[in-house]
């Protein structure tokens, strides 16, 4: 349906058009969205726990986690509130390297990411491994700002950004696909920006 009188000049340049998923617009800034206040986290108190169901597999403190191999990833990110940001540069620990350090093969099924503020989000495990995702520690070469999820956030750039849990403190493997915080509140279980899987009623 064409909207009467709407002729925006804000079209993305055609060379980048193909990189912007449907319904998204290109953002130059880096908006912040979150369900609650930014938690006050000190790296001295920080820890990261890997779990299979209720069973803990391995836990790292800040120094141990930072000693894991680190990789860089520059990706386009897509927020469900319709902004897309190009070429965001991150550095952190690939989920593959976390699993390797814990001495396990990636389990089948699903993963719930948990955060210090009680937030959680679900992702199929296969979307986290083979170089697709990391626990990011740096943004643009600097420690991640608290508003953007620092000291550590999950980065799953190929899904809507609410899946990239801020202030992450653990991953939990689950057999079933269990909804996380926003998924319980009407958002899509998978969240593929290219298929506009925003809300639970989207196919």
């Amino acid at each position, binding site marked *: *349906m*064409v*909207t*009467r*009188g*709407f*002729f*925006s000049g*804000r*079209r993305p340049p055609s060379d980048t058009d193909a990189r912007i998923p*449907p*319904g998204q*617009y290109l953002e130059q*800034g880096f*908006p*912040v*969205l*979150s*369900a*609650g*206040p*930014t*938690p*006050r986290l000190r790296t001295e108190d920080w820890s990261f726990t890997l779990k299979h169901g209720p069973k803990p597999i391995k836990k790292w403190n800040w120094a141990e986690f930072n000693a894991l191999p680190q990789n860089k990833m520059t990706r386009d990110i897509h927020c469900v*509130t*319709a*902004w897309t940001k190009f070429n965001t540069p991150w550095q952190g620990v690939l989920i593959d390297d976390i699993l390797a350090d814990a001495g396990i093969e990636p389990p089948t099924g699903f993963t719930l990411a948990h955060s210090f*503020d*009680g937030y959680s989000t679900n992702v199929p495990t296969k979307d986290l491994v083979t170089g697709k995702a990391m626990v990011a520690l740096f943004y643009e070469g600097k420690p991640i700002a608290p*508003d953007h999820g620092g000291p550590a956030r999950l980065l799953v750039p190929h899904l809507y950004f609410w899946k990239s849990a801020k202030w992450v403190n653990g991953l939990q493997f689950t057999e079933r696909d269990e909804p996380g*915080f*926003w998924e*319980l*509140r*009407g958002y899509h279980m998978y969240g593929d920006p290219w298929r506009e899987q925003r*809300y639970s*009623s*989207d*196919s």
Partner: protein
Amino acid sequence: MSAEPQPQSPWQTATISRVEKRTPRVTSFWFQPSRPFTHLAGQHVDVRLTAPDGYQARRSYSIASAPEAGAAIELAIERLDDGEVSPFFHDVAEVGDEIELRGPLGGHFIWEVSDGGPILLVGGGSGVVPLMAMVRHRTLQRSAAPVALVFSARTWDEVIFRDELIGLDNRRDGFDLVLTLTREQARRPSDYSRRIDAHMMVQAMERLPKAPRLAYVCGSNAFVSAAAEAIIDAGVPAALIRTERYGV
């Protein structure tokens, strides 16, 4: 052709049924949905504009009207001069126009009478919009839940819903309005003329009979960060604070 019935598009057409200027920068638009829905106070809708060549822009807007106010929903849109969608509403949209809309959306930043009180509401600029839906819902339900609304605006003339809010404040029925003007002197003795800080939050909470069960903060990101910090410093546990950030 597939035998499966196609799912109904979640988008629907809504007709603008009324337009009212609220402040120099904020105008309310009432949308009459073709498929009416019931929302919860604090929820938002997504609005989608389509240009003749198929280019689309979509944005989220909180619903200002109470759930029980009737089928037409009120959106109060602030004009950002260099924006894309808000200037369209201010300069082009008029009564009778059809706009695509999707909703209601959002399942966290909501308050129902059954959630009870006391409640601390803190809004900056157009961030007052979802809080207004909560305040109106409380009034229409004749709820006795104690509510304090701290509303920060640059000037007296930029206080969205000002007369309605002051009218509700004057009823002294457990709703308490605290205005704080950042670029002008306060006009009412109990108001402030500075940015929100922890001391102001402590004093606002003293107007409630006991500590809030929940606090809701909405506005620009910078506002929400600062106000949430102030509420935590005033002694409210972070877990009781819900935020809605309008992005930039």
